[in-house]
């Protein structure tokens, strides 16, 4: 028989028993709708988690640190410009930016803040970090040094006299980072030394840790203060808006290098290694490197490659893997709950097909006597079962879209996330379940005796 004839016959026999067909289809609708909705809940959760990880420093980024254990004995695992270009030649690496981390003291009015995370990135790297700004924006190429401030940086400012800040008083210092004049001291050692000797009482907090170093320093001249303009302030409303950039200060690495060279002249810049004779090197050694990989799936491979080169590389990949695994198993579990109703629907299909075969015993016999192929008879019933599945799958998917829309509307975020493959998988599953449920009935139809046609009742 031609496929078109088979289809037509199957559909017409479904239409002949409308109410029964509709009820059977309804079972499939409920089954598919519950599976798709449940799985979409799991997917939505996964998506929300990934978005969260994205905010906590990116899904595709790797941070490379020099291997600290080897610093003294050999220079091979420090990060310099050669290392950066080696990294950028690795497969799947999109962007490599050296990161130069320095410390500085910010002074504004009576407040001061000793920052440890003054991070210089290349402009390309800053762009790749994809920061959101609440004010201002990225610095431009060739500009002199400008700072980008983290959204919680103000919490770290303390009253220079009382030593109390946000964490003690609960009040944020009233500083406009964009517009107020802020003095920056790069030579923190000299500043602290001179300040310590001047101040009547020893400061609590930050500086206590530095006391041991005081003896070595010779410079007693007050450190110079610079006014560094602000390029922007990073986005983040309220106290809970904590991201990995929140307490940092960011800037263009080239501008930072220029400024540091000016500030320290021939002296060793803090954080840079020295030769055996105590002289600084000509070239820069970086605190770390920031690497962006082209896709999330390459992160662990690239990370491993860099680790094998002797560097210390960290990324969110393990975290991502963990969350993805846990949300995948959650989605599977939710889908399993939905699958129970699909099982009931499958039994419904099998039952309907069975009934229909009993009713049509004579018809099937006649078809056999008239020379209908056995496989055509089986195909007729399989097509019937598959169309029940298909129609149920289509309507079930439509229903799950409605339910997902309602859930998302009520929860106010994308709790349910229906992907194209989920829709296709739902449809495919419905058809497959239909065919499986129709298989044994169709086998039975095929094996019915043609003698049934002869009997007169």
């Amino acid at each position, binding site marked *: 028989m031609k496929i078109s004839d088979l289809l037509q016959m199957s559909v017409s026999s479904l239409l002949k028993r409308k109410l029964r067909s509709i009820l059977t289809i309804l079972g499939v609708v409920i089954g598919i709708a519950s599976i798709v909705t449940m799985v979409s809940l799991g997917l939505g959760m996964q998506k929300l988690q990934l978005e969260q990880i994205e905010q906590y420093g990116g899904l595709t980024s790797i941070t490379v640190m020099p291997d600290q254990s080897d610093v003294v004995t050999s220079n091979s695992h420090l990060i310099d410009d050669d290392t950066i270009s080696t990294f950028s030649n690795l497969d799947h690496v999109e962007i490599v930016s050296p990161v130069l981390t320095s410390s500085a003291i910010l002074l504004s009015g009576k407040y001061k803040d000793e920052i440890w995370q003054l991070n210089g990135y290349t402009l390309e790297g800053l762009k790749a970090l994809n920061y959101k700004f609440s004010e201002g924006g990225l610095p431009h190429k060739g500009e002199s040094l400008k700072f980008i401030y983290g959204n919680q940086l103000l919490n770290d400012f303390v009253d220079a006299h009382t030593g109390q800040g946000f964490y003690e008083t609960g009040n944020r210092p009233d500083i406009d980072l964009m517009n107020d004049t802020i003095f920056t001291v790069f030579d923190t050692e000299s500043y602290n030394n001179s300040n310590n000797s001047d101040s009547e009482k020893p400061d609590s907090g930050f500086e206590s840790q530095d006391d041991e170093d005081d003896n070595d320093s010779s410079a007693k001249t007050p450190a110079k203060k610079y006014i560094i303009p602000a390029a922007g302030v990073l986005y983040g409303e309220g106290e809970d808006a904590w991201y990995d950039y929140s307490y940092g200060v960011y800037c263009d690495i080239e501008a930072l290098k220029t400024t540091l060279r000016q500030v320290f002249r021939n002296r060793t810049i803090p954080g840079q290694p020295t030769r055996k004779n105590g002289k600084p090197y000509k070239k820069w050694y970086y605190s770390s490197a920031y690497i962006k990989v082209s896709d999330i799936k390459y992160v662990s491979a690239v990370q491993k490659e860099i680790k094998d080169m002797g560097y210390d590389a960290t990324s969110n990949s393990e975290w991502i893997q963990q969350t993805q695994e846990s949300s995948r198993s959650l989605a599977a579990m939710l889908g399993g709950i939905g699958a129970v109703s699909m099982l009931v629907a499958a039994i419904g299909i099998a039952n309907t097909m069975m009934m229909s075969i009993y009713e049509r015993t004579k018809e099937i016999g006649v078809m056999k*006597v008239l020379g209908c192929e056995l496989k055509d008879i089986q195909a007729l019933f399989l097509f019937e079962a598959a169309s029940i599945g298909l129609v149920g799958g289509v309507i079930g998917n439509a229903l799950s879209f409605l339910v997902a829309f309602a859930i998302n509307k009520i929860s106010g975020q994308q709790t349910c996330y229906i992907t194209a493959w989920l829709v296709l998988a739902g449809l495919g599953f419905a058809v497959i379940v239909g065919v499986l449920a129709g298989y044994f009935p169709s086998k039975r139809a095929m094996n019915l005796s043609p003698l049934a046609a002869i009997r007169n009742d």
Partner: protein
Amino acid sequence: MQEINSEKPVIHVENLYRIYKSGQEKVYALNGVSFDIMKGEFVAIVGTSGSGKSTLLNMMAGLEKPSKGKIVIAGKHIEKLNEKELVRFRREHVGFIFQSYNLMSTLNAIENVALPLSFRGIDKKVREKRSIEALKHVGLEKYMTHRPNEMSGGQQQRVGIARALVVHPEIIFADEPTGNLDSHTAGEMLSLMQDIVKKDRQTLVMVTHDDHLASYADKQIRISDGKIV
């Protein structure tokens, strides 16, 4: 359809047995039956109820398996075929007319006649053309688009005959084709079948219990207790 030598019988039945086991006892539905049917013959198998005539027909049509013996139809030993081969055999060589017509209630006359053609994978247009021809042949020009429940018993059986003819089979089997019709219509139906056999040189094997109806046939095979008498 292959050309058949008129000297050779189109149906050759030899020493056919059908034995049912009923508890300890063996029941011989057919007890050593042999005969030949030539091409273009109209043969009536006559017997009372339980004589084994229907069993004989079912075996010749490949609906039941013999316990012993040979059935050669159009040169094929059908006692050796399996279910799948039997379906193909029926499709290629056999037309069947039922006592209770067995038309599909949702299909009209043309569609019912076209049904065996669709099993052969024939195009819808060709199907329709041949079905209309066959319906004209049995005198149902005016009822082409009627459904079975809109037709009389006689008209329905005409559709049944057209359905058997439309595939141009070598042999048509008819199982009590007039069993559900009144005697007047039955006579009409048999004249029609006689005509067709004569005109198309069609071989027709009919089972009946009615001696009068059997008299329409060229040849009668009488069966009693599973034996030809």
